[in-house]
C-alpha cells in the first residue's frame, strides 16, 4: 500500500470553469501558473473541446510538451457560499519563464489552498488572544483596539517610537507583493517612525547587496535570455538546481548542452564565435548544480572550492589575472567608470604594488584554490574570443556570497570583477543575485539609507531585543525562532521576556475588558523593563507564535490580488485572487490599514487631530489595486529615454494598472517600466546598464576592498587553543530543493514530510567511515551557540572536515548553531560559516528510516 493517499483519476475543468493567471508563490524564478476553479459535481470531458485546459486527454499527453496536470496540482476547497470547488493549478505554457515546466515546489501550489479537511486546516482563521496558557478567539474589533491602545500608550509615554520593534518581510512573493509592502511602509515609516525594524530572516533593516548598489549596480540587472546567450555562466555561492530550479533546467542547462546556439548566432555580432556554454561553480560544496551540469558538459565545467569566507580574496585574484593578461577594455573603463576611485581599487583589491607571483601565492594560501584554477576561471570569464571579440559572461551570485563573512566586501568584489571585464549591459552578460524569493519593494524612505559608508549601519534589532530593550514586538509573516541567526539564544530570551508579561498579566486574574487589558499590559511593561508584548501576524501558528500574546490571521497567496517581479527578468505580473481567505483572515495591507484607522480614532478621541490624520493613510484603500496605485506615487517620473533607465528605481512601475497587467498576462512587463517619451507608451527594460550605471553621474563607483583579516571573534574562538579538537568541523548551511523556507506549507504535505521528517546533515564519506556513521543515522551537531538532532546523509557534496546543515527545518533549525556575527558595514549575518562537533546519538528512530530516503542527492550519473 502506498504510504499516503494517492490518486488515479483527476477531474478535468469543464469549459466555463473560472480561469485565472498567476505566478508561483515560492522562489525567485517566478514560474507562471494558470488556475481553474469549478464547482464539485461538474466535470469536463477528455476531448480538446470538452475541457477548459483545451487539452486532448483522449490519448496520453506527449512527454515534455504536453500539459502537466498531476496529483499535486488539484485540490478541493470550501467556498464562502458553503459549496465545494475544485481547484487545478497547472504550469502556464505561455510563460516565457517556465514554458510549461515546474518544480517540486510550485508543482504543489494547489495543495496549499485552505481546506477544512486537509493539512491546511491549520491556517489561522480569526484573531487569537493569549489568556494565561491558552489562545482564545477574539474579534478584529477587539484585537485592533488592543493593538491601538498598546501602541499609542507606549509612544505617548515615550514621546518616540523606539520601544516599538518590528520584524516584517520587505518584498514580494509568498503572497506579499507591492500592495502589502506598501501598506507596511506607510504604517511603519510615514504614520509611525519605526527605527527598530528588521527584515524577515535577518536582524536589521538593510539591503543584502549594498556592496553592489553603492557601486551603481542594482542586483537585478540581467534577463532570463542572458542565461541562454552567455559564453560562460558563473554560479558564485548560488545553487540554482535546488533553489532556482526551473531557471536552471529551462535556461542555463540548455545553454551548456548547446541547445541555444541558434539564439546565440542571431544575437551576436557578425563573425563572433558561438559555442555551447561554459560553467564555473564557485562553492565549498559539490552542489547538485555542479554535478548535474557535469552529466552534459564535463570538460566545460570548472569547480572552485574556496575556504569559507575567502570568496572576495578569490574574486580579487581573478581580477588581478584579468589585469595582468589585459582581458579588459581600457576605453570602456574610462568612459563608464570612475577612474579616480579606480586607483583605490587597483591599490587595495588588485594590489598592483605587490608582484604578481607573490600576490597569487598569497591568494592561493588564503583561499585554498590552486593558482592554476584561478587563472583558468579568469580565462573562462574574460579572455577575448576569436577575432578579439569580448567574451560574454553572466555572473549569478546568491547566499554563498551574501550570507558570507564580510557581506559588503564579498558582494562588491564580485560585481567589480564583472565590470572590470565589461560583463554587464550586453546580451549574455550581467552580474546579479539569483534571488531567494520574488520582489516587490515600494515604501516611503527607510530609516537607514545604506551601509556604513552611506548613513549606516542599521541597528541590530535581534541584539536590541535580547539585551532587554524594546517593549512591543510585532512579527509579520516571518518565523525568527527558526530563521534568525543564533536563534537558540534568541528563542530563549524572547520566551523569557514575553513570559514575564504573561505571568504578570495572570497574577491577579486576567483583565475582563480590552481597556483594562491594555492598561495592565502598559503597567507591566513599564514596571518590569524586561517584559515584552509580542504580536504575530501570519497565515499559520508559527514557532514564534507560541510565545505571542496576540495573533492576527493573514491572507495567503491566491486569497487577494497582488503583484511582484521575479529575479531573473524583473518581470512584473498580476497574481490573481482565485479563492477566499479562511475565516476572518485579511490581506496584510488591510490589517495595516485598520491598525492605522484605529490609532487615528484613538488620537481623535484625545483631540489630537494632526496625529490622527497621519494614521488615516489607508482610508481610501478599498481594493488591492488602490494600494498598488498609491504605491506607484513613491517612484520617480518614468518618462525617460532608454539610455536613462539607470536613473530609475529597479521596481518602478509608474503608470501600470491591473487592467494593463491583465492584458499582458504571462508576458508581464519588465521593470523599471518607462513611459517612452517618443510614443507615450509603457515599455519595459530588458537588461540594465547598457548606457550608464545607476549612480549620480552614471559612472561605476569602484571600491578598494579590505585585506584578509582572518575570522571574526564569534568564529575565531573555535580556532584557538584546543577548540579545533573540540569542534573539529567547519559548518555551512543552505536550502534544499524539496522544502520552501520554514516549510510552513510543506510540513502539511506527506510527499515532503515523509521524505524529510528531520533536518539533515551532509557528512563526507571519509568522515562517516572514521566516525562509524551510515546514511539515516541520527547525530547531534553542537557548538557553544546551540545544537540539534540531524539525520545523516553521506555524500561527497561536502569536503572532509565540513558539514552542511539544511536550513530552517521545523524539527530543528541550523540557525541554532550560527553565531551572532554580522558584517559591521551592513549588519548582514554570516549564516553560512561556523564550527561544530558531531556525535552519534544512542538508539534510533526506526520509523524514520522506513520512510525517508538517504540516497545521494548530487549523484546523477
Amino acid at each position: 500500500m502506498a504510504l499516503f493517499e494517492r490518486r488515479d483519476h483527476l477531474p478535468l475543468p469543464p469549459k466555463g470553469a473560472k480561469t485565472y493567471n498567476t505566478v508561483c508563490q515560492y522562489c525567485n524564478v517566478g514560474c507562471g501558473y494558470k488556475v481553474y476553479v469549478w464547482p464539485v459535481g461538474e466535470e469536463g470531458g477528455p476531448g480538446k473541446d470538452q475541457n477548459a485546459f483545451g487539452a486532448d486527454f483522449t490519448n496520453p499527453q506527449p512527454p515534455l510538451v504536453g500539459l502537466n496536470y498531476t496529483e499535486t496540482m488539484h485540490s478541493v476547497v470550501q467556498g464562502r457560499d458553503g459549496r465545494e470547488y475544485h481547484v487545478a493549478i497547472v504550469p502556464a505554457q505561455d510563460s516565457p519563464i517556465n514554458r510549461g515546466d515546474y518544480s517540486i515546489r510550485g508543482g504543489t501550489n494547489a495543495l496549499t489552498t485552505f481546506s477544512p479537511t486537509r493539512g491546511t486546516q491549520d491556517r489561522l482563521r480569526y484573531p487569537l488572544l493569549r489568556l494565561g496558557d491558552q489562545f482564545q478567539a477574539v474579534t478584529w474589533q477587539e484585537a485592533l483596539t488592543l493593538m491601538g491602545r498598546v501602541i499609542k500608550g507606549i509612544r505617548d509615554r515615550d514621546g518616540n517610537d523606539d520601544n516599538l520593534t518590528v520584524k516584517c518581510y520587505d518584498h514580494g512573493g509568498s503572497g506579499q507583493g507591492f500592495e502589502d509592502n506598501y501598506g507596511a511602509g506607510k504604517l511603519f515609516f510615514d504614520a509611525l517612525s519605526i527605527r527598530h525594524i528588521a527584515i524577515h530572516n535577518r536582524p536589521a533593516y538593510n539591503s543584502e547587496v549594498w556592496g553592489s548598489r553603492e557601486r551603481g549596480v542594482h542586483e537585478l540587472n540581467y534577463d532570463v535570455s542572458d542565461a541562454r546567450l552567455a559564453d560562460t555562466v558563473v554560479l558564485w555561492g548560488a545553487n540554482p538546481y535546488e533553489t532556482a530550479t526551473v531557471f536552471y533546467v529551462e535556461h542555463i542547462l540548455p545553454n551548456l548542452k548547446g541547445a541555444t546556439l541558434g539564439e546565440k548566432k542571431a544575437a551576436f555580432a557578425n563573425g563572433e564565435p558561438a559555442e555551447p556554454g561554459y560553467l564555473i561553480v564557485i562553492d565549498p560544496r559539490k552542489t547538485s548544480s555542479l554535478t548535474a551540469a557535469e552529466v552534459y558538459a564535463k570538460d566545460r565545467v570548472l569547480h572552485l572550492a574556496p575556504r569559507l569566507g575567502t570568496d572576495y580574496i578569490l574574486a580579487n585574484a581573478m581580477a588581478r589575472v584579468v589585469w595582468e593578461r589585459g582581458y579588459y577594455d581600457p576605453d570602456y573603463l574610462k568612459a563608464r567608470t570612475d577612474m579616480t576611485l579606480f586607483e583605490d581599487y587597483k591599490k587595495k583589491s588588485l594590489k598592483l604594488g605587490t608582484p604578481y607571483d607573490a600576490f597569487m601565492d598569497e591568494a592561493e594560501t588564503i583561499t585554498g584554490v590552486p593558482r592554476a584554477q584561478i587563472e583558468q576561471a579568469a580565462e573562462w570569464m574574460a579572455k577575448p574570443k576569436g577575432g578579439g571579440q569580448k567574451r560574454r559572461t553572466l555572473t549569478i551570485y546568491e547566499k554563498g556570497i551574501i550570507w558570507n563573512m564580510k557581506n559588503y566586501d564579498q558582494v562588491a568584489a564580485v560585481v567589480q570583477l564583472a565590470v572590470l571585464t565589461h560583463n554587464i549591459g550586453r546580451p549574455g552578460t550581467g552580474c546579479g543575485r539569483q534571488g531567494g524569493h520574488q520582489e516587490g519593494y515600494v515604501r516611503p524612505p527607510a530609516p537607514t539609507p545604506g551601509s556604513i559608508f552611506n548613513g549606516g549601519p542599521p541597528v541590530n534589532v535581534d541584539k536590541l531585543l535580547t539585551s532587554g530593550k524594546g517593549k512591543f514586538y510585532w512579527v509579520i509573516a516571518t518565523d525568527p525562532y527558526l530563521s534568525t541567526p543564533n536563534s537558540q539564544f534568541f528563542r530563549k530570551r524572547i520566551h523569557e521576556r514575553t513570559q514575564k508579561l504573561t505571568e504578570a498579566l495572570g497574577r491577579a486574574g486576567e483583565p475582563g475588558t480590552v481597556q483594562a487589558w491594555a492598561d495592565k499590559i502598559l503597567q507591566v511593561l513599564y514596571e518590569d523593563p524586561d517584559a515584552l508584548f509580542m504580536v504575530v501576524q501570519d497565515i499559520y501558528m508559527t514557532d514564534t507564535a507560541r510565545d505571542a500574546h496576540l495573533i492576527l490571521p493573514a491572507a495567503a497567496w491566491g486569497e487577494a490580488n497582488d503583484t511582484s517581479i521575479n529575479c531573473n527578468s524583473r518581470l512584473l505580473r498580476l497574481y490573481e485572487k482565485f479563492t477566499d481567505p479562511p475565516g476572518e483572515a485579511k490581506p496584510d495591507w488591510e490589517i495595516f490599514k485598520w491598525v492605522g484607522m484605529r490609532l487615528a480614532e484613538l488620537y481623535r478621541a484625545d483631540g489630537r487631530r494632526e496625529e490622527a490624520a497621519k494614521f488615516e493613510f489607508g482610508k481610501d484603500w478599498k481594493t488591492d489595486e488602490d494600494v498598488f496605485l498609491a504605491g506607484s506615487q513613491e517612484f520617480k517620473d518614468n518618462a525617460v529615454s532608454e539610455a536613462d533607465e539607470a536613473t530609475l528605481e529597479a521596481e518602478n512601475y509608474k503608470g501600470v494598472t491591473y487592467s494593463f497587467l491583465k492584458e499582458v498576462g504571462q508576458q508581464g512587463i519588465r521593470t523599471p517600466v518607462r513611459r517612452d517619451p517618443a510614443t507615450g507608451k509603457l515599455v519595459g527594460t530588458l537588461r540594465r546598464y547598457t548606457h550608464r550605471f545607476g549612480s549620480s553621474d552614471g559612472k561605476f563607483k569602484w571600491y578598494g576592498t579590505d585585506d584578509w583579516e582572518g575570522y571574526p571573534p564569534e568564529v575565531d574562538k573555535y580556532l584557538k587553543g584546543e577548540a579545533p579538537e573540540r569542534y573539529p568541523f567547519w559548518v555551512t548551511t543552505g536550502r534544499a530543493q524539496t522544502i520552501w523556507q520554514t516549510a510552513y506549507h510543506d510540513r502539511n504535505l506527506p510527499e515532503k514530510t515523509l521524505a524529510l521528517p528531520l533536518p539533515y546533515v551532509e557528512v563526507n564519506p571519509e568522515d562517516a567511515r572514521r566516525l562509524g556513521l551510515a546514511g539515516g543515522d541520527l547525530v547531534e551537531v553542537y557548538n557553544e551557540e546551540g545544537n540539534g538532532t540531524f539525520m545523516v546523509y553521506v555524500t561527497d557534496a561536502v569536503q572532509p572536515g565540513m558539514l552542511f546543515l539544511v536550513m530552517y527545518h521545523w524539527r530543528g533549525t541550523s540557525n541554532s548553531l550560527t553565531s551572532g556575527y554580522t558584517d559591521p558595514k551592513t549588519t548582514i549575518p554570516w549564516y553560512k560559516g561556523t564550527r561544530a562537533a558531531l556525535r552519534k546519538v544512542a538508539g534510533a528512530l526506526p520509523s524514520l528510516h522506513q520512510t525517508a530516503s538517504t540516497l545521494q542527492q548530487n549523484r546523477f550519473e
Partner: protein
Amino acid sequence: MTSVLTRRKFVQLSVASVALFSAGGRAATWFAPSLTYPSIKAGNVAKIEVGKPAYFNYPDNRAQAVLVKLGKPALGGVGKDRDLVAFSASCTHMGCGVQYKGERFVCPCHQSMFDPAKSGQVYQGLASEWLPQIPLRVQPNGDVVATAVEGLIWGRVKNV
C-alpha cells in the same frame, strides 16, 4: 405555485444526479486504486536478477512500467526477500521514461530521482509527486503479477 414534476424535469434531475455520482460524490477524491485494473504478468521470480530492470506495459500497451529486484527489502516489496517492486516508468514531472541506475530511478530529462525502496519517493529533482507504485502479487508458479497503479500515470487524468 404548485410544483409538478414533469417528465422533462425528471430526466434533467436524473442526469444531474448521474453527473454528481460519476464525479465521485462529495469531492471527487479518487484514492488509488479507484478503478478496475487488469492483472498482467510482469515477470517470474526465477528469471528476475538483482539490479536488472524488466520493462513491461501496464495497465495498457500505451503505458510503460518497470519491475526491479532491489536485493534489499523495499516498501511494498514482494517475493521471499520482499525486494521485488514495480513502478510506472513515466516520470511524474513531465512524462519522460525513467532509467534504473543502481538503487534508484533517474529521469534523463531534468534529473529527477526516485527511491524504489521507499515507495518511489522523489529524493531529488523537480517532480512534485512520487513515482506511482504498482502493487504486485506472486503466483504459486512464481509469476509476478501487476494488480493496480497507486498514483496517477503522467499525461493521463484516468489511469484506465
